């Protein structure tokens, strides 16, 4: 019995961190209608940045948030400005910008191999004050770094929700996401919004990276397992929906952890995809998706 309670709580904790890795992806998709295949690699860049910051300065890993998040914001901002925007403009008249997707795949390969070249294939673990610290209740153990991670996820979700609903910039972002031509006519500078949104999406990866580094190892293809999960979560939660991404993440985490108590761990992966197909079958727009044609 206690094993199941432990699994449920651990599932929620890990799931919210999965949600955190998916938030940036859903944001970029919701506004730009671009599937960012480089998402996992950007997470990897963030993890390396956090790893080096923590290892070299020896500070509390959560202080890295204040350095890594702005770094990744500008990283994304300029990546969009100099790499993605020119392609966008070349394909202005096409409704489905396919080349952009190919470009993000290119960025993925470039970043992964650059990291391999610079840091090698070895696995690195940042030694921090929270690493290995457990919360113990009735013979159940929870990693503090995961608890903090879940908390950070919640805060980021609330902030993004407020930002998109109530801030002036957030309203402009939403307007662009609804109809980019009409928004342009209203005086919203579309390309600038895109730069900011891509930057924000990458900054979300930066948050996830700082939360992951205290308990997860870093290596050049670390983004891949999170990347695949993030895509499932985004579609499951509803394309473009921030609460959907976080909830979708928690559902995946729960299936993974609780499911494994009843069957071999290899089967839970299948269970995730079965559930995913089921949701798509019943509600094709995802759990929180709008009835909208993307």
């Amino acid at each position, binding site marked *: 019995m206690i*094993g199941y309670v*432990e*699994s449920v709580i*651990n*599932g929620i904790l*890990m799931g919210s961190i*999965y949600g955190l890795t998916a938030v940036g992806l859903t944001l970029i998709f919701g506004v730009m209608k671009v599937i960012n295949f480089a998402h996992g690699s950007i997470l990897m860049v963030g993890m390396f940045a956090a790893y080096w910051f923590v290892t070299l300065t020896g500070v509390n890993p959560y202080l890295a948030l204040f350095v890594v998040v702005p770094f990744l914001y500008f990283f994304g901002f300029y990546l969009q400005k100099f790499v993605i925007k020119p392609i966008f403009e070349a394909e202005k008249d096409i409704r489905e910008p396919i080349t952009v997707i190919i470009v993000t795949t290119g960025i993925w390969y470039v970043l992964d191999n650059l990291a391999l070249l610079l840091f090698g294939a*070895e*696995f*690195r*673990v940042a*030694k921090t004050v929270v690493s*290995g610290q*457990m919360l113990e209740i009735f013979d159940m*153990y929870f*990693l503090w770094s995961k608890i903090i991670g879940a908390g950070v996820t919640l805060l980021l979700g609330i902030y993004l929700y407020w930002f998109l609903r109530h801030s002036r910039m957030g309203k402009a972002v939403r307007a662009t996401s609804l109809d980019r031509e009409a928004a342009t006519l209203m005086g919203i500078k579309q390309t600038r919004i895109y730069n900011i949104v891509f930057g924000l999406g990458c900054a979300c990866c930066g948050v996830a990276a700082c939360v992951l580094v205290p*308990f*997860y*190892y870093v*290596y050049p293809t670390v983004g*891949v*397992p*999170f990347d695949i*999960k993030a895509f499932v979560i985004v579609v499951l939660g509803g394309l473009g929906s921030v609460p959907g991404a976080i909830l979708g993440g928690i559902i995946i*985490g729960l299936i*993974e*952890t*609780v*499911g*494994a*108590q009843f069957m*071999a*761990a*290899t089967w*839970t*992966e299948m269970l995730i995809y079965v559930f995913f197909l089921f949701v798509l079958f019943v509600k094709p727009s995802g759990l929180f998706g709008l009835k909208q044609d993307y």
Partner: protein
Amino acid sequence: MKFFKVLPFLALLTALCSFGQAEAAETIKIGNIIPLSGPSASVGIQGKNAREMAVEEINAAGGIKSLGGAKLQLVFSDSKSDPTTGVTEAERLINSEKVHVLTGAWNSAVTYPVTQTAERYGMPFIVPVSVRDTITERGFKNVFRIAAKDSWWTRDQFKFLDDMKKEFGVDVKNVAFVYENGDWGVGFAEKWREMAKERGYKVVLDEPYPSTASDLTPVVIKLKRSKADVVFMTSNAADAILLTNTMAEMKVNVKAIITSGGGHADPSFLKAAGKNAEYIFDLVEWEADLNRPGLKETNEKFTKKYGYSLAGESVDAYASMYLIKDVLERAGSTKPEAVRKALIETNLCGGTVGLLAYDCIQFDQSGQNKNASLVIVQIRQKGKDMERITVWPKNVRRAGYTPVFPQPNK
């Protein structure tokens, strides 16, 4: 006019040919198919270096005396870890290079078809390392393997457990199996199940997991609740780190963790898992601290020459060259029939073979070295770093070390 342009090349070609012919009379060519590029290149190059060092030593000591001091000559070809390339290279070495003996090919997947080619040509083939059982189980007459085969790994893990139980008077009832769900892990688990049944252990957990999992907490929760005494594990590097750290964090208490090389033997595992890896027993082919005569000197020489230490693969490659020397010495001929006969009669003990974890090389009917064995190391903290200390078999245990069994509670 054109003729004069070609002339120098022709002259060079004739010179080269005659040079080759003059050499052939007194050198014995050894063809080596190993991965020198591609994913397994680093082990391939280790094997190449070890072979070169051995052949240098043999030639410096006067070559093969029964053949009038004939020198050994190494011919390398790159398999790129690709079976097709391996087979093509084998054909080339046999037909164009006219080698007398073949060795290789490290990757089981390459060795398997390459030995088939060698068999067809009646070419003696020495396999230093390649673990797949079936390589020597096809009734081939020309294939001889020095290293232990796959099924012996799991056998030795259980033998080790028996010995430990006896040595420390500890009882073990429940065992758990945790393994990656690839070819390797699933294959090991199959053998573990048989062994556990034979020895009357109760299997309380039999859990495969995907090697790419981003979170292994669910597996560790299960392991913790299973009340296992001993856990057997087969993991790649990333999941070995994740499992070891999660097990330590969730305070999983078992009497022993017995792992199967692979990820647990990866240098980055010890760095990333750190103190959490302490007390793990890891099964490997060979370890640099083995209590064997002459090992230290050879390792020092090798390290000085190439800048890194010997490893299981390179020691087997090194020993295989001395095996070839011994065989040719006894055969007194380079004819495949004579070489094969000498190989069957091999009883090579001590000397450079003593670097291996066992005493002698002797082949059984299938061509498998029947003495080949594996060693078990225990990971212990020494200063700030973690160290791998050989503990089993007892005759090679590092002098003055007593293994910790059962491991203390976390």
